[in-house]
């Protein structure tokens, strides 16, 4: 097993794995733990993963991440899940320049808007933008046809645009 091979896999797919886990557990710390577990397994199985095609490696990583995340949720069944929004961050104490502040506000608005989407649209947005999956990969994972995925992406973007306009109008 070559170190660079694991490094490449990690570099290419760590984000995919993290957001695949996050999509299920909705908690930063847990998603990080699961990401760690996934790549620990990848490291231990590099003799099998190394020769695989990129698409197979990606599938394997996504599957392991999702399964571990679902296992976690099952174990936490009786506990109240946190309502942590997508990419919630610790508040900055340093004052920001106005432009930066505006940008941050807009991004926060987008994050909140994503949370308000229904589960299907939220999944598609998360997989496409956060996990950086292609339309065909999302289709494979969700069982929805690529054409429908594309339409839903368009629809989800429109919904988000409307939500952002509505919020801007309220301010």
């Amino acid at each position, binding site marked *: 097993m070559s170190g660079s091979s*694991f490094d490449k896999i*990690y570099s290419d797919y*760590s*984000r995919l794995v*993290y*957001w695949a886990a996050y999509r299920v557990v909705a908690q*930063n710390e847990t998603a*990080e733990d699961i*990401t*760690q*577990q*996934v*790549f*620990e*397994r*990848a*490291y*231990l199985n590099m003799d099998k993963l190394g020769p695989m*095609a*990129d*698409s*197979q490696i990606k599938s394997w990583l996504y599957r392991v991440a999702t399964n571990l995340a679902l296992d976690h949720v099952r174990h936490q069944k009786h506990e109240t899940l946190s309502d942590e929004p*997508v*990419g919630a*961050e610790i508040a900055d104490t340093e004052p920001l320049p106005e432009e930066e502040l505006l940008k941050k506000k*807009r*991004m926060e608005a*987008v*994050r909140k808007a*994503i949370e308000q989407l229904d589960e299907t649209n939220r999944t598609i*947005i998360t997989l496409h*933008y*956060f996990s*950086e999956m*292609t*339309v*065909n990969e999302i289709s494979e994972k969700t069982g929805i046809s690529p054409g429908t995925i*594309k339409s839903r992406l*368009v629809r989800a*973007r*429109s919904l*988000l*645009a409307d939500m*952002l306009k509505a919020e801007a109008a309220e301010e």
Partner: protein
Amino acid sequence: MKKERKIQLVTDDFIEPPGEELTGEQAEIDALLRAVADDCSAKIDFEGIKQRAVESAKAKKAKRGRLRRAIGYGMVAAASLVVGLFVWQAVKGMNERVPNGDAVDAQAAERNDDGLTKHDPIADVKVYVGTVSEAEYTAFPETADEFFPENLPETMKKRVDTDAVRTSATGTDTKGGSLDYVCTVEKGCAKGLEVGEACSEKTGEDLWYYWQINENHYLKVRFTGFDQEDAEAMFKSLADRITMQQKDR
């Protein structure tokens, strides 16, 4: 003539056709979403996660290696012991022959001064490594069902008295003769045995086995109605079971 074109796939990945170019509101939201996703992802300590994953994986690999080596050494040691015991038994058997080739009475040769049949400790401890520590002994009352040999006839009715650490079983053999089994843990030392040693004696119809399991306790087992070979096999099965159970705790 139709010309055939050979299509060769460069990779296994599906190459997506170029998508429609986004414009207007769609393009704006698309860019925003990418920025949000990049921003959120940038806040995640991916380097830290990678480091922990690799360290944990390496630790697991090292642990598996140690376990494999330990199992390997254990198997080699066990195999060597078994071979050594067979050789020892063979030599012992040869030495017991008188010059004219007749075998001596094995039991008479093994009787000690008390008139008891004393088995050589090495022959008896080969399967039950020999001792149960005082600390482990305190667990005995919870595990009374360990005090039955695995090869005890299934038709025998078992009884357990955990207060006294006594187990027993009664039944009948195929000819209607009675079978009896009693196993107790007693305080003290039996028959001058060293810790780990075992011996047996026959009194009337009863076959008794004594096993000094630690400095302060010995196992006393009685078989009635069984022939010596079966009793011996059951005693060894019992001792093996007790020792393995203790090791598994």
